[in-house]
């Protein structure tokens, strides 16, 4: 019975270590933010009974996020200063890309049609969230960033694709947030199979834990 007891102990310890801190954080959230969610912010949930996940989609600024994540911050995050010499270079054909670095990102939701999130800062340590901002972890990378620039006042010509080395947020950690069945049911009216725009929105309250976790706390009822 000794190996069985040890195996059961491994399961119990792993579950407690994984869930314990998360449950404690959820019991006493340190902050909240209300965001607008539209159908384009939901992933999955197309099949009957499947619960979708909530995405925090980032804007894709031309040239990347270098204007809000300066070189000094990149060095503080762990990037080698030599890796930063390629930033902005459109003809760079050097060696390997530097390893992405984990950072605490502050996000602010834009009010334009996509309700996407704009990165307003990157930090080594978790910053205190100010009103209207989200603080989440993400992977910051230096990479080639492709941009499509439409020719001015000419909708008939296809956009011009350009690229340059820039600062990019590869993904958020976690990359999507879970919804329970009640929350998913409240958000379901946002999903229209025949429409991909982002006109209708619902207010969703996100909560933050003391150690940086983030989760969906509630969904407001539609007006």
């Amino acid at each position, binding site marked *: *019975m*000794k*190996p*069985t007891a*040890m*195996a*059961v102990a*491994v*399961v*119990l*310890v*792993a*579950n407690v*270590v*994984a*869930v314990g801190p*998360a*449950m404690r954080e*959820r019991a006493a959230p340190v902050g909240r933010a209300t965001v607008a969610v539209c159908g384009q912010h939901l992933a999955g949930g197309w099949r009957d*009974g*499947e*619960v979708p996940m909530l995405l925090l989609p980032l804007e894709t600024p031309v040239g990347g996020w270098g204007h809000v994540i300066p070189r000094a911050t990149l060095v503080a995050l*762990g990037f080698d200063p030599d890796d930063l010499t390629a930033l902005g270079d459109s003809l760079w054909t*050097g*060696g*390997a890309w530097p*390893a*992405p*670095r*984990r950072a605490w990102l502050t996000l602010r939701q834009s009010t334009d049609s996509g309700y996407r999130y704009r990165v307003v800062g990157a930090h080594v340590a978790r910053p205190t969230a100010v009103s209207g901002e989200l603080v989440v*972890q993400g*992977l910051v990378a230096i990479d080639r960033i492709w941009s499509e620039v439409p020719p001015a006042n000419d909708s008939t010509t296809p956009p011009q694709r350009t690229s340059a080395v820039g600062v990019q947020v590869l993904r958020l*950690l*976690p990359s999507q*947030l*879970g919804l*329970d*069945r009640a929350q998913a049911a409240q958000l379901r009216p946002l999903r229209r199979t025949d429409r991909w725009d982002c006109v209708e929105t619902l207010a969703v309250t996100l909560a933050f834990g003391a150690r940086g*976790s*983030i*989760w969906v706390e509630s969904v407001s009822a539609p007006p």
Partner: protein
Amino acid sequence: MAPTPAQHRADQIAAFRAELARLAAEGVATLDPAVQERIRAHHDATLAQLSATVELDLTQGEARLSAGMRIATVLGAAALSAAWGFFVAALWNDLDRPARLALVSVPPVLLAIGTSVAGARERSGYVAAIVATVATIAFAVNLAALGVLYDLPDSRHALLAVGLFAMVLAYGHGLVLPLLAGIGALGGWLWSLAALPQGRWWDGVFGQFEPLMMLGAVAIALPRFLHRGPPLFAVTYRAAGAMALVFALLLLGQSDSLSVFDGRSKSLIEGGYQFLGVLTFALLIWHGLRRDQNELVRAGTVGMGMLLFLRAVDWFWDVIPKWAFFLLVGALAFGTLLLLRRLRLAGRRNA
């Protein structure tokens, strides 16, 4: 797969009896009936003693059935694990949080107990191996589901936990299949540690194959220092390690972008690993022949063959006609056959 010492002894007894019968039938020699009876009684007692501890194949037919049972074990474990994964996915959306938590965290515990029961009731270990492997997969599903349930960032420590769980079941009940799962999971965790000095996110290192190469070498050497578990465990470590080593060296020899040194001279990195590959594969074959470790000989031969083929493609595919290319590959195969034949003859002369 190499036989266990008990199976090896049983095979020797069967071969002795068959040869004795043949010698008698051909009129070469016949043992004195009293001596023959004493030997038979001794062998019967030995086989009974061995059979009391492990399940043995006493005839060719039983050996063939055992091979089928091993295949059925792997297929059964894979099918039941898939069934479990799909079952959780099917129920997941209809349950609230506490029920979801119970759905994923209770089964690994029950299956760990089930492994113990199966191991005690069925001595061959086939059923216990299936239950233990499904338990390992259920535990992996458990940890992945917790990440979804509590919006946790992904973590390398899930691999450590799954690896430890599989190892406890493998060593506790002497099961090879969970040992393979444990080697894979713990190997993945150790591989991810290479991200730490580089400041990468834990999974950002799985595109670099030097750590896998080193882990493969460690796994090959490990049975010399780790003497716990049935003899098949040593073979499993060496086979898994040799496969990792061969796979990593072949990839590194093909593309510099898979190396920690990516960004430096492409030809130096790829050429260096091709050279290291030739040396390593030859060493695997030589060491395997010397120590009678078939798994190393097979891995080294496959690695050398693949390396030669990939080099031939890189060097000649674009510069010689296709028929000449395949003629060259055929010639390489002949060359390998001749080399292995010479090795076999040399081994026979030395024996």
